[in-house]
């Protein structure tokens, strides 16, 4: 039955306006000639030029990408292992604590994770002399810890949906359990693992609070750089930087969307063809 949902549709329109007006405004003002962020002084791309010639920004971006890449890879491996373990082994000693440890970082306020990591690193330096200095390694370690649980959540959910019979079939055909995992389980859940990696990468790239606690002198990531500038107020070069970051993500998401849509349509088409061939 076709019913009109005037109220719901207008709420959707309101919601999306709320989501996107601030971002659009930021994008428009990134092309503002005036140094005063809120006064329109004509069109200009000078803030983009100054952004690209700013070595500090480029260095911070590179550091952020390095940390995000390394931590996403390690977090994906560890998180996938935990997700498979929790989905497949329903009984082992300490499972309750394990599943608690996997959920806790998801809901832990970031400030607490931040100071606890920092205290941990300081105390470790006292007790065993490591880490001598905080920086790349400590930030990466803390990023791995809190992003791996997101991978676990995704992988675990996917595992619970997948059909156990295909794993049993592989075992029945002579594969050892770890071979089953390598040949069947991981390939089947691979899309989930990839989206886990992407999520871990984004979370790491975006983090301010935990990084601000666990970093050391000389290791300024891009969010930390933005953080220190933004605390002083609105500036046009941050508008330009924000525009670049938002459009990168938007283009990325749009491409991903188109690719997935194609794959989905292709799959539907294949199914239809197969159905016709049978019929």
């Amino acid at each position, binding site marked *: *039955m076709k019913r009109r949902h005037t109220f*719901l*549709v207008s*709420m*959707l329109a*309101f*919601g*999306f306006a*709320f*989501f*996107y*007006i*601030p*971002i659009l*405004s*930021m994008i428009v003002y990134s092309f503002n000639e005036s140094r005063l*962020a*809120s006064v329109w002084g004509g069109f200009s791309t000078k803030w983009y030029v100054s952004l690209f010639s700013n070595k500090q920004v480029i260095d911070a971006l590179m550091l952020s990408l390095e940390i995000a890449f390394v931590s996403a890879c390690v977090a994906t491996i*560890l*998180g996938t*292992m*935990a997700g*498979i*373990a929790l989905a497949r082994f329903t009984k082992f000693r*300490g499972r309750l604590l*394990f599943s*608690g*440890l*996997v959920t806790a970082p998801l*809901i*832990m*306020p*970031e*400030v*607490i994770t931040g*100071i*606890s990591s920092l*205290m941990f690193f300081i*105390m470790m330096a006292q007790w065993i002399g490591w880490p001598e200095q905080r920086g790349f390694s400590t930030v990466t*370690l803390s990023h791995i*810890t809190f992003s*791996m649980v997101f991978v676990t959540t995704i992988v675990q959910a996917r595992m619970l949906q997948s059909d156990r019979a295909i794993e049993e079939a592989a075992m029945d055909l002579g594969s*050892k*359990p*770890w071979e089953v995992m390598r040949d069947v389980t991981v390939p089947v859940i691979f899309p989930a693992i990839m989206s886990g990696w992407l999520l871990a990468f984004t979370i790491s*790239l*975006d983090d301010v*609070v935990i990084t601000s606690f666990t970093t050391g002198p000389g290791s300024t990531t891009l*969010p930390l750089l933005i953080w220190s500038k*933004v*605390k002083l107020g*609105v500036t046009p070069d941050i508008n330009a930087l*924000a525009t670049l*970051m*938002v459009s990168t993500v*938007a283009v*990325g*998401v749009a491409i991903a*969307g188109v690719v997935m*849509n194609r794959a989905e349509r292709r799959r539907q088409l294949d199914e239809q063809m197969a159905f016709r061939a049978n019929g």
Partner: protein
Amino acid sequence: MDRKRLALWFDRKGWSDILILAPYVWLLLFFLLPFIIVVGMSVGTKTPTAPPISFGGDYPLINLQGYVRTVADSLYFRAFITSLVSAGIATVLCLLIGYPMALGLTRVSRSWRNILLMLVILPFWTSFLLRVYAWMGLMGKSSWFNAGLTSLWNDIVPASWAVEFVPMMHSNFAVVLVMVYTYLPFMILPLYASLERLDPTLDEAALDLGSKPWQVFLDVTLPQSIPGIIAGGMLVFIPAAGELVIPTLVGDASSPMIGRVISDQFSAARDWPMASAIAVVLLVLMVGPAVLYSHFQAKAEGSK
């Protein structure tokens, strides 16, 4: 152990042990241990050494001053109240805006739905910091948005109430507004997930039995979406209550929120025991109910 026995062990049991132990040990070492250190610190005593903490000394081994002060010292107590109230209001507003949006998403055509869902998720992939920053631009004294609101206000109120600009920045209002803005997707997505699962024939059954659409909503849709409401509520409330970035950038410095207090006590005042005690209390207040809820949820699922 020779290689053959090693291989046998690996095939039978070893692979699963490694699968479990690697992430387990990692989390114990880098998540649980740091947290235990925080709990330990919370009963220590502040000293002017480096690190600025000791146990014993003037006080007995366990010093509960930090916990006493979280309740007794009005600064901390007020910070807790400010945080909980702001996060609570933000959660309710997210629910009021997010619920109709999520319900609307389940009612639009499939092709529109995918695009709109993508638009809900998109802000989530862009920098959190920059989303807060975007509102700083809008709320500032001389922005087009503020100017528009100001002239709107001046048009509808008597001349004596006229203002030069709407004082939005550096207020609790700004904190709540930006919280709603940044956390709204966390409310919409679980709500959408639980609403989308509902069987539309249940709505038809209720209509068929004589209920008008709004009664169907109250009797059928709302009760079945309660798990989604609770999940979304927790995803908004818990991080919002411990929020540090938003109050620092747009909040009122004279009534700080608890995340800010923890950070200040730790870095500026170098009072580790105090910062740790507040962190522990915050965690018990936030995560305690969440753990209890998921425990009962699991039990209810189990009894099905």
